[in-house]
């Protein structure tokens, strides 16, 4: 495969039909068994693109409250919840669109994920966490 970036390619060098490859090289192994950080993503894989600027509100994760239930990881429509060995690790802000679904499905009280305005720093957001609410 060409090592030239797609950004420098002329019409004659592009892959026909704007087909985009997911990985560099041939996949003769089980990709599911390789951690994302060890995969050879192709330049054209959306993993390599930053699309975080679409977001207005972001989910902030509070590790003190999290019970690692994996609900957020399961429900995120953009695979932007990072989890390793069934432990919540954090949010992939390069790809998270700020839809708030992860917050919605988080079962703890108070929630371990909450939406904050994009410009608020995470450290600051963590100081504004609400108290546990008493159920009726």
């Amino acid at each position: 495969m060409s090592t030239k970036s797609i950004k420098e390619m002329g019409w004659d060098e592009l892959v026909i039909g704007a087909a985009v490859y997911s990985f560099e090289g041939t996949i003769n192994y089980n990709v599911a068994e390789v951690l994302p950080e060890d995969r050879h993503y192709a330049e054209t894989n959306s993993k390599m693109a930053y699309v975080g600027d679409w977001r207005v509100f972001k989910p902030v994760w509070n590790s003190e409250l999290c019970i690692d239930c994996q609900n957020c990881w399961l429900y995120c429509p953009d695979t932007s919840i990072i989890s390793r060995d069934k432990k919540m690790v954090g949010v992939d802000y390069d790809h998270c669109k700020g839809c708030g679904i992860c917050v919605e499905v988080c079962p703890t009280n108070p929630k371990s994920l909450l939406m904050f305005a994009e410009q608020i720093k995470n450290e600051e957001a963590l100081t504004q966490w609400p108290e546990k609410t008493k159920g009726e």
Partner: protein
Amino acid sequence: MNKKIMDIDSVEVWDGNMAAAQALRQADVDVVAAYPITPSTPTVENYAGFHANGYVDGEFVMVESEHAAMSACVGAAAAGGRVATATSSQGFALMIEVLYQASGMRLPITLVQVNRALAAPLNVNGDHSDMYLGRDSGWINTCAFSPQEAYDLTLCSFKIGEHLDVRLPVIVNQDGFMTSHTAQNVITLDDETADKFVGPYKQVNAMLDFSKPVTHGVQTEENWHFEHKAKQHAALMASTKVIDEVFAEFEKVSGRKYNRLETYKMEDAEVAIVALGTTYESAQLAADKMRAQGIKAGVVAPRVLRPFPLEELAATLQNVKAIACMDRSAPGGTVGALYNEVCGALFNTPARPVVSNIIYGLGGRDMTIATLCEIYAELDKDAKSGKRNGALQRFVGVRGPELSFYNK
């Protein structure tokens, strides 16, 4: 090759629909997805019959519309299979959005198009308005003028579109009813010869190739769209070489020779008719009659409408004095497309013939030999006087007072 071989005679009596269906069967297509519409219905019906009787190993998919038919074709082609469908007129119009997807995604698909008028008023008969509708869709467009040619060109279409230097979808046009429902002798290839000619399908970026995961149908904005369209056009233009090669190979197996531009008695012609479809054959008979009267008449027909044989056309018409470009499609507020193509081809060359535009045959209105002879007689007048004697654009065969435009 399909497991079950069909025993066919070396000469069969087939109409254009049966000829196309047999070619699809012999090409061992992996997926045919279709929604039958008059007058192409029997192409699909015959194929479904072959499938039901075990002569087709591939899948036959019934869908809910032509948009769905072409969408299923795009999906199956992207997955990595040889794919075909058939349609006409309104069905073709409904496919249009997906036709651009197919060519832009560089998926070789064969579309048997039995040409028919576009509504309104609703009309099931043959004209070229659907053919013209697809002109800019980025598909290779070939034109069959008889059942034999429908058979031959459908077989060739796979070899052309699937070639690694091309990878573009191909439309094989034939006139509704005049070709599609007129049974004629068709010289056949046996299943094995046809299979060997078409050859095995070569996958490119197939979605079912799990060793190279790939996404098709992506979005590109101002940063890449232009480059991809440029590449697509370059491939379409370069397909002329492959088309010539495939036609030459086909001649070797069949003895029948096709050219991107077909000509009849053009070597010494002084007046010429440029036409598409069955009119090409009728015009040949008219040309012979005119020649008996001492008028040097010839006929020209683009066998391949896209990529357009612009240079070949210009070369053929260099010594012609008067030309009638015959458009069988309502021109929609200007001259007919064939007129524009011919004049555009000639403009940067020394030739300065008198060129007129005839609109004819809409909705299946017959074009007779007698009328073609009259057109030649008009051309002869133009040729002798060195100028146009009638209007630039004339409607021929329409009832009512003479209808013509651009009279100055």
